């Protein structure tokens, strides 16, 4: 057989393989979305947002879980973005090449891939046991620890991509290093920084295990972070495993809500990133 033919056959095999793999991935995604939509959309009504979780057989919604998720994810992400951006900035701009910097980067990468149940256990030991109780704060901290390494990593990567000429140009005008970072480097990298925060959010929005250890869950509506707090993932976990039809239906609605939230936050983030790049 001549080489050209062999190469053409190899090429065809490769194209078919990649196409099949793409198809498999897409099919899985479509099936997930389809089951979420078909089982979840029917259950969405105003009660979902206004009523708390019901006893089996009675009317109710998910307002306590929605509230808890928003609060704990929001606070967790806020802490993670604050710490992560500063830590990533330090790694990229100041200490990244010192021995300490290498150690920090290594530990951050370990944390990045740590199983979330470990994080839950850790926060349980430092924030739940000593204070004799599950709390929204503990949940938020667990989520923060999960999102932090992602934000740190993306921040360092994206800042390292900024040309050193940009920093030098700022310094050449007489600005201090910190000023150049805040006013020029962060600004040049803001689309990437937003992406980091989004990745962090995507990671924590569906986390269940760490919340079971820390916020536990709460069948009543509560915005008190010092008390146990409901969340969508823990409620889904509890309801989906139950024997009651109406609870199972609510679990599907909850899952759909998480998916929609992740999707819309991603879209919003992309729009922000695009705007940032344009201006």
């Amino acid at each position, binding site marked *: 057989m001549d080489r050209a033919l062999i190469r053409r056959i190899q090429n065809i095999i490769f194209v078919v393989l990649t196409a099949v793999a793409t198809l498999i991935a897409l099919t899985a995604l479509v099936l997930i979305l389809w089951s979420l939509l078909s089982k979840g959309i029917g259950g969405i009504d105003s009660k979902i947002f206004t009523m708390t979780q019901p006893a089996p057989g009675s009317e109710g919604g998910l307002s306590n879980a929605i509230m808890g998720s928003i609060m704990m994810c929001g606070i967790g992400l806020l802490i993670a973005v604050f710490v992560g951006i500063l830590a990533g900035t330090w790694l990229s701009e100041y200490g990244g090449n010192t021995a300490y910097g290498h150690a920090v980067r290594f530990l951050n990468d370990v944390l990045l891939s740590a199983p979330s149940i470990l994080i839950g256990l850790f926060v349980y030991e430092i924030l739940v046991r000593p204070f004799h109780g599950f709390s929204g704060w503990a949940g938020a901290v667990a989520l923060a620890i999960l999102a932090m390494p992602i934000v740190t990593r993306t921040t360092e990567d994206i800042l390292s991509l900024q*040309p050193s000429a940009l920093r030098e140009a700022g*310094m050449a005008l*007489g600005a201090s290093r910190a000023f150049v970072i805040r006013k020029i480097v962060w600004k040049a990298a803001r689309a990437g920084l937003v992406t980091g925060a989004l990745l962090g959010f995507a990671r924590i929005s569906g986390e269940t295990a760490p919340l079971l250890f820390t916020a536990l869950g709460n069948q009543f509506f509560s915005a008190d972070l010092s008390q146990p707090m409901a969340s969508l993932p823990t409620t889904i976990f509890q309801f989906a495993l139950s024997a009651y039809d109406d609870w199972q239906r609510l679990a599907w609605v909850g899952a759909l809500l998480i998916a929609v939230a992740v999707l819309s936050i991603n879209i919003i983030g992309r729009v922000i990133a695009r705007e940032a790049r344009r*201006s």
Partner: protein
Amino acid sequence: MNDIPAHLTEEVHLAFPSRDNLAIEARKLDFFYGKTQALYGVDLPVERHKITALIGPSGCGKSTLLRALNQIYDLYPKQHAVGRILLDGHDVLADRKSLSRLRERDGGGDDTMVRSPIDIAGLRARVGMVFQKPTPFPMSIYDNVAFGVRLYQRKSRAEMDVIVEKALRRAALWDEVKDKLHSSGLGLSGGQQQRLCVARGIAVEPDVLLLDEPASALDPVSTAKLEETLIELRQDFTIVIVTHNLQQAARISNHTGFMYLGRMMEFQPTEELFANPRGQRTRDYVTGRFG
């Protein structure tokens, strides 16, 4: 390490201008990237309100010399300079290692030279720099120009408008951007971005403007515009320009220094250096017999 490279012992031909009217001056400047020495006892007198050009083959230390003059190398802990940099006669080399090594090298030095209290930010305010690649900041054209001014002075909106317009006019960019001052500086063409960087540099009214191959990324039309701008600017500023374009050096500069492997081999009034180069290496370089 003990063999001395040939060019370090060759005769140099330095016809320096009188020291009375220098804006900035490097004296016996050594520069190190870690352990690698990149400049060997370089002298560079820069006359006020003149354009001084630096030419020489790639890697000879032109950029290093410019970066030493406003101490931008200070960002990188492994780089340091030894020698003197005089701004209006005050030694401003803020490199802390420099003083002790200077004593070591020159045996005490002359104690008449008093270290001035100019700090590094103050130095950079007086010695501006424009880089080879345009470096507009990710902000509006207006804010780009105002950036440096805002570091030092609090100005009213109206005062700032005047400063920004003046800087843009002097950089020959005003007519092209006056209708879009508040759109992003990143949206300009390469040549416009480079003139924006010039405007940003002169808005703080520095004494000296250092330009490192500012036209290397520009087309002939933008280059011609930039050259006109520089000739205009000479009235108010002192300019040092690094260029690979010998015609450009010949067209716009008053003095030209030829560097070779970290050493200042020849320094002459520009016509003199091009018409009648003294050193063999200079002659080879300006006649194009040499890479």
